[in-house]
């Protein structure tokens, strides 16, 4: 059970409070001048992140307007065919990868600690690193259109168009650039998951978590399983483009449909990854303005989790016209309809909350209401297109363009705008203008419907999507003109919102504290906010502490709760247990650094040089990046504290160092490895996909890789794994020499195992360019070897840490995390061997 906090003590005298405040301010001071860019604090990085996503929204929006101008008249020549195709590819990709997903992560990075009464996210430098990757990748992608080099294969990038029929670097920019950004997205997801699970305030049991946190937890978990299939697919497609391994080329035994499966395994959950965190904003806004707790908290959580699961079973409805058997059509139609039920439950929870409360009129509610009107219509057309026979007509027409914009603008953009008007005071202490907000709303709402409602009809009349022009007199002319006019009205509305956010507000006075009289923790913030987040980390026993816990603000402000002081001048926050939020650790957090920027630049170099097929600079960048990351880990992680425990207030003593499943680092490793494993499973899926669709997979007789070398590899790698696990135990028992020799032997076995794994296809002379079978074997083997190589670096790192005295028997985070890594790696190796050596025997 949770700890018993006991009665709060009296507030310390005022001088003591003042001294505490000064020490806290000193510890959490933001760097100034050009060093400002070395900040890693979540409120600063979150702000950069949000600002950049809005910039990309603007960029994607301008492209949309150019496209609408081109389509205003039949046979128009405002944009060339080629430029139009680049524009729609970049528009779709930017809106998905550089706006819709990042803005969810950006908002979460900015507000998640405040909603949880924490001082900071668990890995501040990881969020900064993710931001820099995002910025670099985003600019690279958007910039390419100015050099006529942008991707032009559609945001879905179907091969063989993108593998063999588009020369130039456009497709490489897409594949490598977005893989880079996806890695940043996964980093942010890891951060958000651990933030939600481990940095909650004491007492915030799992049934008291704010709904926003539930939603982003589900969405971040979905990222872990949705992005890896796309990363795996991008890897295959890029390898086909660069080295001619025929994964998607029927002439080499491949199949273009594999890409569609991997893409939509990502692409459909992606819709809900965008949608859930936006509904999450509604789930915070609606109770505030209904002035009562949400009705149906449990239902909403259940619905959000349910959508998370269901969304992974729907991807095939994007492929209804590829010639599937009737049974698949029926099953996936039904599964797609089923998702309407949890969605409906959430909407009705909001309606019930409004009905039960005394609703206050406000600009955020206006946007929330607009969102409902638009989204419900989009949801209903979604129900229509999910029925296979209707889909045969509507698929790939403007009907779907209308549908998806109703869903995404209604389900994501309007809630985000509502969130902007609602949360803006938390950013700089000032409200946005009610007047501008209303004008902007009516322009955006009207413009949106004028633009997109007619498109339903345009599509039903037979206008396909992704066309740079159309013939006159087919019934499309007037409808398209109306859509173009609407698009500009919508743009005017959004321009006003942007202006409202960036307009100078020097003269405007600060908002009062908690201006909307909300009940959740983030509104304890002073206006303007302080860099420390919370004056003291509170004990929670309700869902709406500001409404339900008497004198809450006073107690927080007077420092009566935990960590009211920074005695050692260090940044600190509290880690709690996953289910019932029992305090477990006082977590020391790192401060400003430029190292994250350097790590992102070099990592970006790897992908960007790769785009231009400059393999040597690319490899050098990767090595530099690796070196920088090792330096980063070496100097700033798993630091041995000066004392074992610390008094965090209220008579509670917490350890400063924990390892294993109680520590944030162990969870980060575990969650990251789940994503890595998912990418690997996607490659294995490719192997079995080819087996089901191709009679000659594996070929008969099987040309390789034989059984001998793969089996040797499996044995050696299991040995490497066992040595690593044993080394962890020897370290715990302080058998230094056993630890060193064991781990050294482990790394030698690992290297030998990796070599043996490569030897299989090598000695049987499998040529990956000749056929998809050797290509698939090689890709599995290469993936596993790469993972082993990283594992060896980790083993050597642990040896060095102990030699340097940075790891001891008791302070053993490094080896415990590395052992965890090796559990996954050993599993990967065994699966690889079973597939490449074992499966041909069964097949």
């Amino acid at each position, binding site marked *: 059970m949770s700890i018993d906090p006991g009665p709060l003590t009296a507030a310390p005298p005022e001088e003591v409070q003042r001294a505490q405040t000064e020490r806290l301010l000193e510890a959490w001071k933001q760097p100034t001048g050009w060093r400002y860019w070395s900040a890693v604090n979540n409120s600063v990085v979150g702000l950069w992140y949000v600002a950049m996503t809005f910039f990309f929204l603007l960029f994607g929006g301008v492209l949309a307007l150019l496209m609408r101008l081109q389509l205003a008249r039949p046979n128009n020549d405002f944009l060339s*065919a080629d430029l139009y*195709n680049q524009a729609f590819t970049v528009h779709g990709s930017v809106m998905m990868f550089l706006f819709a997903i990042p803005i969810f992560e950006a908002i979460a990075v900015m507000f998640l600690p405040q909603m949880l009464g924490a001082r900071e996210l668990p890995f501040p430098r990881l969020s900064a690193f993710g931001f820099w990757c995002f910025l670099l990748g985003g600019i690279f992608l958007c910039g390419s259109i100015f050099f006529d080099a942008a991707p032009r294969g559609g945001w879905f990038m179907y091969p063989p168009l993108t593998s063999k029929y588009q020369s130039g670097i456009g497709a490489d920019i897409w594949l490598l650039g977005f893989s880079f950004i996806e890695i940043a997205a996964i980093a942010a997801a890891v951060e958000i998951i651990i933030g939600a699970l481990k940095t909650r305030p004491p007492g915030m049991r799992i049934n008291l978590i704010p709904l926003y946190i539930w939603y982003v937890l589900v969405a971040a978990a979905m990222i872990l399983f949705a992005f890896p299939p796309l990363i795996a697919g991008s890897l295959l497609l890029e390898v086909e483009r660069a080295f001619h391994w025929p994964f998607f080329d029927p002439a080499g035994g491949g199949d*273009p449909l594999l890409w569609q499966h991997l893409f939509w395994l990502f692409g459909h959950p992606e819709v809900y990854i965008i949608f859930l965190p936006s509904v999450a904003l509604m789930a915070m806004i609606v109770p505030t303005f209904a002035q009562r707790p949400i009705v149906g908290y449990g239902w909403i959580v259940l619905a959000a989790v349910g959508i998370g699961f269901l969304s992974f079973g729907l991807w095939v409805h994007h492929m209804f016209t590829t010639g599937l058997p009737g049974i698949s*059509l029926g099953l996936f139609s039904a599964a797609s309809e089923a998702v309407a039920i949890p969605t409906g439950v959430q909407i009705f929870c909001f309606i019930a909350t409004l009905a039960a409360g005394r*609703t206050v009129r406000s600009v955020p509610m206006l946007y929330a209401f607009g969102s409902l009107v638009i989204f419900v219509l989009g949801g209903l057309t979604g*129900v229509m297109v999910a029925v296979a026979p209707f889909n045969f007509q509507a*698929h*790939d027409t403007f009907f779907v363009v209308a549908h998806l914009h109703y869903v995404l603008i209604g389900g994501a953009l309007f809630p985000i705008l509502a969130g902007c008007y609602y949360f803006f005071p938390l950013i700089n202490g000032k409200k946005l203008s009610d007047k501008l907000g209303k004008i902007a709303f009516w322009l955006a709402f009207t413009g949106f419907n004028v633009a997109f409602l007619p498109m339903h009809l345009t599509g039903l009349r037979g206008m396909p999507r*992704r066309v740079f022009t159309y013939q006159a007199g087919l019934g499309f002319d007037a409808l398209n003109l109306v859509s173009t006019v609407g698009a500009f009205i919508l743009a005017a509305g959004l321009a006003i919102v942007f202006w409202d956010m960036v307009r100078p507000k020097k003269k405007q006075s600060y908002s009062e504290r908690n201006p909307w009289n909300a009940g959740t923790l983030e509104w304890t913030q002073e206006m303007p906010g302080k860099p420390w987040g919370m004056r003291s980390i509170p004990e929670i026993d309700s869902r709406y502490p500001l409404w339900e816990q008497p004198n809450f603000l006073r107690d927080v402000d007077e420092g009566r709760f935990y960590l009211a002081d920074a005695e050692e001048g260090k940044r600190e926050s509290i880690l709690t247990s996953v289910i019932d939020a029992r305090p477990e650790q006082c977590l020391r957090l790192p401060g400003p650094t430029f190292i994250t920027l350097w790590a992102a630049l070099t990592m970006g170099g790897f992908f960007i040089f790769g785009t231009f097929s400059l393999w040597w600079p690319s490899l050098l960048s990767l090595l530099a990046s690796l070196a920088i990351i090792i330096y980063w880990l070496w100097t700033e992680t798993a630091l041995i504290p000066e004392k074992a425990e610390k008094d965090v207030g209220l008579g509670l003593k917490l350890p400063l160092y924990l390892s294993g499943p109680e520590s944030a680092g162990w969870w980060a490793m575990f969650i990251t490895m789940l994503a890595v494993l998912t990418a690997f499973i996607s490659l294995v899926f490719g192997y079995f996909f080819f087996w089901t669709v191709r009679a000659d997979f594996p070929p008969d007789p099987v040309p390789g890789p034989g059984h001998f070398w793969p089996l040797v590899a499996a044995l050696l790698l299991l040995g490497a794994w066992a040595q690593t696990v044993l080394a962890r135990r020897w370290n715990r028992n302080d058998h230094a020499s056993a630890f060193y020799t064991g781990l050294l032997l482990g790394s030698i076995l690992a290297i030998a195992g990796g070599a043996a794994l490569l030897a299989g296809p090598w000695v049987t002379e499998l040529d990956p360019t000749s056929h998809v079978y050797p290509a698939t074997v090689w890709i599995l083997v290469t993936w596993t070897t790469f993972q082993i190589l990283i594992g060896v670096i980790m083993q050597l790192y642990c040896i060095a840490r102990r030699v340097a005295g940075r790891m001891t028997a008791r302070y053993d985070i490094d080896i415990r995390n590395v052992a965890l890594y090796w559990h996954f790696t050993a599993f990967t190796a065994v699966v690889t061997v079973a597939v490449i050596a074992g499966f041909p025997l069964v097949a």
Partner: protein
Amino acid sequence: MTGGAIVIWIAVIALAIHAFRARPGSHSGRHANYLILGGGAIVPTIVLTALLIYGLAPIPALLAPAPEGSLKIAVSGEQWWWRVRYETSDADAVVLANEIHLPVGEPVEFRLESPDVIHSFWIPALGGKVDMIPGRVNRLSLTPTKIGVFRGACAEYCGTSHALMSFYVRVEEKAAFDRWLMRQRATALPPSTPLAKRGQASFLANGCGACHAIRGTPADGVVGPDLTHVGSRLSIGAGILPNKPKAFVHWIARTDQAKPGVLMPAFGMLPKADIEALAVYLEGLR
């Protein structure tokens, strides 16, 4: 279906407005639970089940193969035109491009494939779309019930000129269809006027026959569309230009402008008179 969707939409919005205006206390907690369960779960489940039964029922009929002995047409989507082959029982199939004729009331089976990228075969007025995927063969069976001319288009983004990849379907009486097919099977008409003769000479002299076939002449290329009866078609350039000499001139001289990215090189360097002769010759290939 559309009507149902609109009714549900209005109902939800009305409910939300009512909720927004309602005084607190007029709805008890139990009320709220009924609302969430009923509106969010029970009603949608019933409606969706009914919709699925109604919506999925036609699938078996839509996917059923055409009866034995039906007309079989192989259509291949290529960047950015359609190769059409009538697979008649006789030894030689009839090959044409960018136009399909169908006898009314008779089932037909399309065999859909692609040698390059993914396309999607779609005649909105006659049936749903089916993708043409390299390395696979998809089938689409349908029975046209109305006489008339219908437009078809590629529905899957297939590269630069995806927008300029259409075709026409003419559904006609069986007798008219048979006559048409017979004519399509015949070799090309020899040119009759001096201008047309000059056009044919120019066609053969400038290497057009390397890509295009005109049966009955030495031109036997298979890369591009078969032009044996190009003059009989409703359009040229895959549904983008009218079948007029002027359009032919534009197409031959400024091919890249008429269809950006097209494989065929523009022949604007030929003497204007030659191009006009070519246009007359081709337009005459009825």
